[in-house]
């Protein structure tokens, strides 16, 4: 009996996982497109919009009701012949910047986009300054005093 239980649990678990997977797939509808370009655009847009109720899921990947409604809206707007940017703006106007996985470059997001660039430049400048300082240090001639001290340390007599 005890020997039987192990495989049984494994099989049950696998079956449940499979069912969960099917349920997940069933929750996201399949849409038919006559035009493959529209289909690609649909997938691109729904992959780039974040579901407002989920922590980190695109609307094409979520079975939350609001994500489904947003996919419907994207589909309808695409069928109406609207441009990608119009559709994204349509969503931002309602659900806020939060839905954009790729935040727009504007006053409020200046720090977000600008800081990595600024830090990179700062790093380059620092490295440049250090390299220059080192090079100058090694090229500099010794003063008479320093030379005398060096001679003393190395016990060398100057002949000239």
């Amino acid at each position, binding site marked *: 009996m005890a020997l039987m239980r192990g495989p049984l649990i494994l099989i049950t678990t696998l079956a449940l996982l499979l069912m969960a997977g099917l349920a997940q797939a069933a929750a996201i509808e399949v849409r038919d497109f006559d035009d493959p370009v529209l289909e690609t655009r649909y997938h691109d847009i729904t992959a780039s919009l974040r579901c*407002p*109720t989920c*922590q980190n899921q695109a609307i094409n990947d979520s079975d939350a*009701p*609001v994500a489904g*409604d947003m996919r419907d*809206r994207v589909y309808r707007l695409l069928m109406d012949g609207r441009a990608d940017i119009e559709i994204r703006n349509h969503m*931002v*106007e*309602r*659900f*806020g*910047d*939060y839905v954009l996985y790729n935040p727009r470059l504007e006053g409020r997001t200046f720090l977000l986009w600008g800081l990595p660039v600024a830090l990179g430049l700062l790093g380059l400048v620092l490295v440049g300054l250090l390299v220059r300082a080192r090079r100058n240090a090694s090229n500099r001639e010794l003063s008479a005093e320093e030379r005398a001290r060096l001679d003393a340390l190395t016990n060398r007599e100057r002949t000239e």
Partner: protein
Amino acid sequence: MNHRRLLLLLPLAGFLALAVFLYQGLSLNPFHRESALMAREFPEFDLATLKAPERRVDRELLTGGELTLVNVWGEWCPECKREMPQLLDLAERHGIRLVGISWKDTREKALGFLEEFGDPFEVNIFDPDNELAFELGVYGAPETFLVDGDGVIRYHHTGYIAPNDMTETILPEVEKWR
């Protein structure tokens, strides 16, 4: 020489500043965010009311000069039930006008909800297909919008209005825009 030593601490100082900044971010509530509709006009709509299917209401419901709290609710939403005592208090004790949006519900269930938990609403807009709520960017019930007398959205409360939210945010905001 001492000055140069101090300069070496600069990257560490920068790192610490960044660490403090990012650490603060960890304690932020990711569900808290401003409504995209703040200071914008309440969207256009044309929908039936919950109690009288033949009566239709539109945006003019909110442009009559009176400040209104618009509450999005559903029978299926447990937090909405917990919120009802606060809404009843707002309507009855503070004399605030409340308009409900009955969201993604059937008439039967929504009416049953009002019977069981009380009805603080002057009128309920019936929105079973997420038409108006989508325009408002609603992504979960309950949500509450404060709309001024000209139909402009002035405040947005996401989630349940707890008893302490009444004195901390709702009533001060109502006073501010009345």
